[in-house]
């Protein structure tokens, strides 16, 4: 008999007054898979995450975590949650925080001791175990926040923007922590506003907008589905902005930070494109050819930058 998947969401709907925050979301997560959940602000990511955790009661649809309904005891045991907020007790030490959350999960004494030791080690905070949380750096608090969500050693974890507000060095440490979990076969749902994080950590990406999953697949699948074999030409011209914009608009492209971006079906078309620019009186400064990335997919599908 097949064991149930870590997460199965079927036609989930949630309204807040007249606003439809989740509109028929269907999503599956395979064992050991890391799914990146991307979406602009207000797209419904947080509502979806909170529904999975059992903190939001959906109006319709179902959520099953390893076959158990969300908010059931089985789901709570199997599910870990790293909220975006630093949900810690600032006047308690690192160890005391982990012990508290472990007790809230009814871990027996022996398992609790082991889990706390594991958490401190995983978050590289063993040497700060006795420090008050309020005295930790932002990056350390983030790592402890992750450890607190994992203290009961779940099999599926939801990470809601775990790298918000941390410096690049701390971010790398957090990536290492997540990669370690992945190495242990943990199923993960990861939301972020940083495209490079999604590309580095996630096997599969789901893009949510206006409460719908508008696309999902691997990075390559998404690019292929959205752009086919098209590439992007990025060019800068020494010419009046208005004339460059007129030229770009005529070719269904766009201007980003003074750089003209135009799609072409095949890389060989670049020569024809640049000849056209020269004919239009635009003097080329520099040019590059780029295969579309997740950022391009996101922009193409939502009309917004990921960090908008």
């Amino acid at each position: 008999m097949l064991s149930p998947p870590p997460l199965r969401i079927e036609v989930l709907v949630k309204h807040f007054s007249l606003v439809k925050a989740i509109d028929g979301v269907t999503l599956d997560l395979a064992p050991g898979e890391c799914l990146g959940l991307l979406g602009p602000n207000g797209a419904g990511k947080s509502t979806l995450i909170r529904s999975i955790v059992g903190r939001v009661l959906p109006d319709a649809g179902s959520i099953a975590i390893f076959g158990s309904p969300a908010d059931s005891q089985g789901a709570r045991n199997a599910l870990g949650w790293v909220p975006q907020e630093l949900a810690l007790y600032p006047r308690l030490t690192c160890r005391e925080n982990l012990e508290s959350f472990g007790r809230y999960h009814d871990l027996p004494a022996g398992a609790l001791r082991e889990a706390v030791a594991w958490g401190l080690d995983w978050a590289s905070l063993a040497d700060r175990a006795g420090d008050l949380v309020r005295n930790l750096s932002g990056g350390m608090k983030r790592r402890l926040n992750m450890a607190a969500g994992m203290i009961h050693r779940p099999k599926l974890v939801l990470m809601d923007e775990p790298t918000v507000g941390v410096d690049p060095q701390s971010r790398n440490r957090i990536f290492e922590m997540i990669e370690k979990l992945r190495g242990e076969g943990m199923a993960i749902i990861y939301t972020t506003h940083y495209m490079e994080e999604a590309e580095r950590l996630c096997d599969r990406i789901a893009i949510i907008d206006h409460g719908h999953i508008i696309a999902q697949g691997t990075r390559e699948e998404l690019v292929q589905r959205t752009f086919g074999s098209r590439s992007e030409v990025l060019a800068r011209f020494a010419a009046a902005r208005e004339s460059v914009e007129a030229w770009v608009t005529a070719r269904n492209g766009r201007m980003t930070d003074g750089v003209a971006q135009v799609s072409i079906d095949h890389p060989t078309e670049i020569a024809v494109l640049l000849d056209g620019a020269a004919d239009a009186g635009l003097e080329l400064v520099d040019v590059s050819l780029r295969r579309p990335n997740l950022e391009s997919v996101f922009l193409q599908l939502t009309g917004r930058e990921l960090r908008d």
Partner: protein
Amino acid sequence: MLAIVRTALVSLRRDRGALSLSFILPVVFFSIFAVIFGGRRDTTPRINVIVADEDHSRASADLVKGLAGEGSLVVRVRPTPKQGVQQPEYTAASAEAAVKAGTAPVAVVVPKGFGANLGAMSVVLLKDSSDMVASQMIGGLLQKVAMTSMPEAMAEMGARYMDRFAGGFTPAQRSRIDEGLYLLGQQRNGPARQAQTDFGIISIQSRDVVGENKNAPMISFYAAAIGVMFLLFTASGAAGALLDEAESGTLDRVLSSHVTMTRLLAGKLAFNTLLAFSQLVLMFLWAWAVFQLDFFSHIRGFVVMGLCTAFAVGAFGMLLASTCHTRAQLGALSTLVILIMSSVGGSMFPRFLMPEAMQKAGLLTINAWAIDGFTKVFWRDEPVTHLWPQVAVLLAVGSVLFAIARKVARKWEYS
């Protein structure tokens, strides 16, 4: 400068807590004090007084009648009927027991032979020394009543003195005195009853029957009164941790574990109860160490009252916290509610000083029941079993407040 004033005004207008503290609290407080001390005649407090007439003479009957006619007194000559059966009149012993039980703050005992030995025998005043006002007032009123209600007895007493120490009156003098006494009696029963007299004053022998052996008469009252008020503040502050946790997201994380909202609130209530009880212990120990409060011989009653009070106060804090959305709101609301409860409930000044209506309103507060219970323990030396009304009310109040808090806290449970 105008820009700063404008910004501050807009901020204040949108901060309901600060607005209520700035404008509502002073008005409410002023009104409470005005009602208590402002001398509104329709609500002036009336003093309960028990009268035990053991003499049953004309003089004693006059005295009792005179006291009963005083508008500022509620005179009881017998206990309230039990199951419709009228109770026998108070005796000296039952009057003393009633004062000890707190039925009235003072009892007047007119001893046997009082009428026959006017001037030689004293009226006995049995008082609860925690109510200093009542006994002073009764003492004064007894003198007034003696003069206005029993003038012929006073005159007879004077005549007897004359007979005894000055060789007596001649038959003609005696006849005129008797005639005068008759007229005095007639006059007293007529419309000119309030006429001034120059007769002597009866002797009063007063005795503390409650608190007579206390080292520091009002210490236990204030330990309880002030203690409960600060307990309320502490409990609402401690319960406010719930708001911090909701704001930081910790509450969401806790509720996504095995902890349910009911279990969480029950845990918080247990903590608040223990915290409040510890505060009471500290306060009473301090009163014992510094103000000679007899703490250890009342330890059982203290534990019972302390735990019940702490439970009610803890639940009250939970309700306040669950009603509010932010710490700022909680601060404003708790200040408003607790100060009003404390003033009406007797934490700031004894309830016997208040008008009757306000004394009754005070029974709607945790303060009043807690203070009454602690007074029973430390002042009246009553056994623990006598605390059942206070224990029942405080436990019931605590349970109801907690149930409401649980219902209100649903807002944090799910979106």
